Structure formats: C-alpha cells, structure tokens
C-alpha cells in the first residue's frame, strides 16, 4: 500500500511542479466549454441569448401569418424580417441569413383543414444556408413549435388557448425529459462534451510524458526494481484518475457558477454524477496508458492519438448534441466511450434521468477502462525499440 501511495504521490508531485501544464489542463476545457456554450446563444445572464436572423416570406397574407410573424418577433429568439422569396433566396445564398421561412398562399386554410379533417398537409418551405445547418436546425424546431401554437389557436380559437404559451395540448416528446431550466441544457452539454475532450487530450499529454520517461530510461530503471508492471500501471492509472477528477470538478464547478446549470436536485443524481465522473476519469486515465503502451515514439503517438480523440469527440457527441447527427453516427456512438460519459453527465444534469441510467454509463465506461488498461498491461514495452 505504501508503494502504491508512493507511486501515486510521485506523479502528483511532478504534475503540480509544472504549474503551466496544470493551468493548461484545467483552463483549456473550461474556455472551450464557455465558448461553445456561448455559441449556442445560451450564455446565462451575462449577455442574453443571441438572436438568429431569419427571413419571413408571407405569400398567404392571412391572419395566421400575421399572428405567426408577431409571435416569432415576440419570442426574442429571432431577428426576423419580412421580404419577398427572391430577396430571401439571395440573402440566404449570400450567407446573410441562416434560414428563410416561406408560407405559401392558402397555407392557413389548408393547414386548418388538415388538422380537422386529416386531409393532405400543406407544404411549409424552408430555405437553408448549407454552412449554417445547425443554427437553421435549431431555429426550425422553434419555428415549427411556434407555428403549431399559432395554428392551434387559429383552429380551436381562444376558448382553448387563452394565453400564448398555454396550449390545450402538449407536444409529446419535445421537452418532457428536461427537468432543469431548458435554456441551460446546451451549456451543460457543452461542458460535458468539452470536459471529456479536455480529459482525453490531457490523457494524450500524460501518455507523451510516459513515453518521454521511457526514452529517458526511467521505465528501464523501474523495471530493474522488484515492482511488477501491474503495480506500476496501477499507480500511474490512479494518479491520472485523481488528476482527471480534479479537472472535471474544476470544469463543472465553473459551469455551475457561470452558466447556472445544476445537477438535478435529487440525491440519486448527485451520486450518479459523482460515479460518472469517477468512471470517466478512470477511462481517460486508462486511455492515456493505452496510448503510451502502444506508442513507438512521442511524435508518432501524438499524431495518431490526436486523430483518434478528435474522431471520438466528433462521433461521441462532445461537440454537438447527438440528435443533430445522422442515425448511423448515433449508432456508432454507442461504441465510443466519450458518448457514454457525455450522456451520463447530461442525464444527471438536465435530462433528469435517475441513478439506473447513470449506472449504465458507469458500467460501460468501466468496461472501456478495463479494455484500455488490459491492452496497456499486455503491450507495455519498458525500453524504446532499438533503432
């Protein structure tokens, strides 16, 4: 036990001794998460949400379209401007606008009939800037919801919906899973994603340190001692996991303070969040050992592992919520540890899921930990390969 403690303590001392490296490992994920959270236009109370500029092409000229336009302007989410379809097309093509909504002639009448008689639905046309599909996708969702609200009021009248946001029915599946404030969930997701990205990049740096130690003959010296490879890797893994947990605590702590999201206030969610954080830290630590064990030299390993981490972040939902991804990527993400960590954090913070869901993420993350650690133990080379 004393030996294990000494192995861990030595690594922590070395880590703390390099203050610049400590700062980078703590601040980088925070800065990235703040930036991504801000980009989603949900930056807490500091600057207010960013409005999306869209065009409104009214070819219907009905009461419905006037109400819809007024309602969208009221929402505060859009900087909306009425114009002709040609002008809207031009502006979207130039990239001045992310999205234009075209309400064709007779839309309101057709839509009302469709709601009451189940007849063919009229077409609702969107013009989208292909370079701003995420912004457009998010806006489309809000536009469809607003349209439904206005249309419902048109069809069922004020008897059913006296207040704008009190519909006579709920849209199933849209927000019922969100327990916390909906405007904080993208920021929370950004912090989960960026913290995991930060951890994996930090794991690569840890692996580079290990390879440097091997090049310097330190592994060889350790190998000449009676310490077993398992004990050596266990010490490395534990010290790395402790550092990873400290980074996670700092990143999420900053998120809680700056973006005002919080863990769903239930004991099981606090426990679940803690367990996901521990499992994610162990996974990141073992990933670092895995990279070090497979690496021939620092340069080669750094390049390959950066590529691997970027791929995992992209496919694992660290950058964008998975619902924005095609179905096949959502399927692939099940095989990527980062997606389980991000889903675990999301579940405990804003999805309002329970401990059982967290344990599922924890279990999968621990399996990844064992796979990475097992390969590292089997493949570790104590000396650089001879030239």
């Amino acid at each position, binding site marked *: 036990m*004393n*030996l294990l403690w*000494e*192995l861990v303590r*030595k690594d922590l*001392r*070395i880590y703390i*001794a*390099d203050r610049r490296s400590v700062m980078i490992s703590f601040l980088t994920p925070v800065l990235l998460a703040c930036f991504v959270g801000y980009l989603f236009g949900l930056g807490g109370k500091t600057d207010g949400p960013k409005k999306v500029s869209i065009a409104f092409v009214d070819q219907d000229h009905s009461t419905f379209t006037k109400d819809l336009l007024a309602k969208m302007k009221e929402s505060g989410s859009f900087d909306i401007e009425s114009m002709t379809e040609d002008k809207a097309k031009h502006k979207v093509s130039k990239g001045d606008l992310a999205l234009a909504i075209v309400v064709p002639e007779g839309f309101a009448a057709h839509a009302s009939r469709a709601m009451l008689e189940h007849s063919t639905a009229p077409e609702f046309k969107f013009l989208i800037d292909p370079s701003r599909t995420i912004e457009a996708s998010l806006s489309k969702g809000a536009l469809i919801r607003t349209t439904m609200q206005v249309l419902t009021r048109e069809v069922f009248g004020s008897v059913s919906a006296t207040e704008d946001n009190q519909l006579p029915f709920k849209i199933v599946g849209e927000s019922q899973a969100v327990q916390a404030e909906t405007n904080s969930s993208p920021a929370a997701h950004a912090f989960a994603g960026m913290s995991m990205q930060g951890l994996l990049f930090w794991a690569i740096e840890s692996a580079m340190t290990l390879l440097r130690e091997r090049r*310097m*003959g*330190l592994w*060889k*010296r*350790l*190998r*000449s*001692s*009676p*310490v*077993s490879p398992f004990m050596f890797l266990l010490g490395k893994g534990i010290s790395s996991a402790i550092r990873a947990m400290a980074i996670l605590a700092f990143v999420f702590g900053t998120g809680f303070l700056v973006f005002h999201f919080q863990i769903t206030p239930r004991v099981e969610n606090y426990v679940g969040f803690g367990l996901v954080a521990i499992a994610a830290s162990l996974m990141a630590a073992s990933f670092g050992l895995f990279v070090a064990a497979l690496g021939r030299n620092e340069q080669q390993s750094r390049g390959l592992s950066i590529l691997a981490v970027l791929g995992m972040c992209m496919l694992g939902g660290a950058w964008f919520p998975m619902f924005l991804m095609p179905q096949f990527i959502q399927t692939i993400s099940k095989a990527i540890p980062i997606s389980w960590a991000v889903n675990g954090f999301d579940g405990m913070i804003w999805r309002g899921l329970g401990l059982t869901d967290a344990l599922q993420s924890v279990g999968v993350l621990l399996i990844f930990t064992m796979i990475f650690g097992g390969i590292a133990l089997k493949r570790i080379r*104590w*000396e650089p*390969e*001879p030239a």
Partner: protein
Amino acid sequence: MLEVVGVKKSYGETVAVKNATFSVEPGICYGLLGPNGAGKTSVISIISGTLDADGGTVTLDGEVVTTRSAGPKRKIGYVPQEIALFSEISAIDNLRFFGSLYGLIGQHLSNRIEACLELTGLSDRAKEPISNYSGGMQRRLNIAAALLHEPDLIILDEPTVGVDPQSRNAIFDALEILRSKGKTLLYTTHYMEEVERLCQRVAIMDHGSVIAEHSLAGIKRMLPQTNEVQIEVESGAVVDPATLPGSFSYTWMDSTLTCEITDLNRDLPAVLNALNDLGVRILSVRTRESSLEQVFLHLTGRSLRD
C-alpha cells in the same frame, strides 16, 4: 556471485548478443568493454532484469535473474546509461521514490537517503529540483538512486558519459568507497583509463560476443609483448632508420624516433649505441607499456570509440 552463461538476445533480425559468458567474483570491480553496438547494454539489461534473454542464463548467488524475479532484483542496484530521474522534483523526492520501490520506509529510508547524498556529495543541494543541477551532479544522483537499498551488485552502464573532471573524480571516489565496503561493481565504459583505474577484471565484447576475459594485467599480456620507445634527439639531426640495428619498426617524426622493441634490456642499448655512433645527441628516452586501448585495437581491429 554473478554467472552469465551463453546469453543470447536478438531484436527481430538484428542479433545484439550472440554469446556472452563470464563470471564476476564478489567484491571486485568488473569492467565490460566494447565499442558502440557491441551488445554491452543488452547484456547489462539482461543482468539487471529489465530484459529477458532469448537463450542462456544469468544467475546471481545461485538465483536465476529474469524480468519477473523480484528476489535477485533486490540485490542489484542498476545505474542506467541515461539520467533516469524525475527532473521536476528534488533530489530527496527522487530518492524517496526510488527507495520506496525497494520497500524502504520511514526513518530507515531517510537515513539511507542522507547516506547516499553524502556519498555522492549532493547533501547541500538535496532540496532543489534536479533540473537546476549540472550534468555531473545529475550523474552522481543517478548513481545515488541505485544505492539506497544497499545492493550487493551495482551495475553501472557508462556512468561518466559527458561529465566534467570534478564530477568524474567524485564518482570514482564514491565507487572506490563502495568497493572498499565489499560491494561488487559491474562497470561498462568507453574510457580505458577508467577501467585501468577501477577494474580488477575485464571482459571485452565485440559484435555481440565476449572475445576476451581476464584480469587487467592478463588482458594486457594478450598483446604481443613489445614496448614503445620514443627517443627525442637534437633538432636538425637526420637519422636514416636503415642504418639502425635490428628488425624493429621505426618511425621518424620531427625530432623524435619511435620504435617497437620486444626486450628493453637486450635491444634498447643497441639502438642508443647506434645513434651515438652516428653522432646524434639524445635529449630524452621514454618507454610506454601496452595500453588497454592497444589491446582492444589488436583484438577487435577497431578503436573503442568507433
């Protein structure tokens, strides 16, 4: 104490050690000599338990040494060729860590750290991060880290590479103290003068094999017995070597005549008399015994530093 028998090691197609056989008696300093690529470091790695041999055996006090044998490893102190230390932390923290690998704890560990720092002359800067140390000081600490657990066999793989003369002397002093305490040293180096100063017995490796193994004096006797004689004569004197006696090999450079003589008592007076008869005024006569470098050159056909 240490028996190395028929050790072999290959890396893929490259054969690093073909056949290494030698034994080291307790309490001596044993030199392992060879040029770069001779296989010394592979042999050292196998003896220190950091690498497994493909064939042959290494035993220490009767116990087989492998990468998994913890028992013999406790008796070995290994000083790698590289400065294998954590530069970010202090000398004390480094030594505390390396001592703990051998199960040292508490006051005993503190005492051993103090003793090793004193032996290597680093006590006064023990709390500094070693990144502040000179190369020579780091080399000394590299040795100290291998001595904490009081090993019986200390393996030193080129421990003086790139150090200043002051640190080199400090290292030699420390090694001589260790030998006087009965420790066994296995020492590899490029520097012949280090072997001549420290070692009682020598093995010469080349192309992965031990090609000679003997006492230091015995190794030197392997060279055909000749003595190099340098005779400095008065400036301006011209000597035709053909006029000199015997079938010795003569070389003439500036005002110095150099010749290889087998028997000093028999042949040197004849040469000096011949010079005297030619009217050449002799300023000085110097003789030199065969050096280890010459022996090495004779056995391998190449210089140690090749």
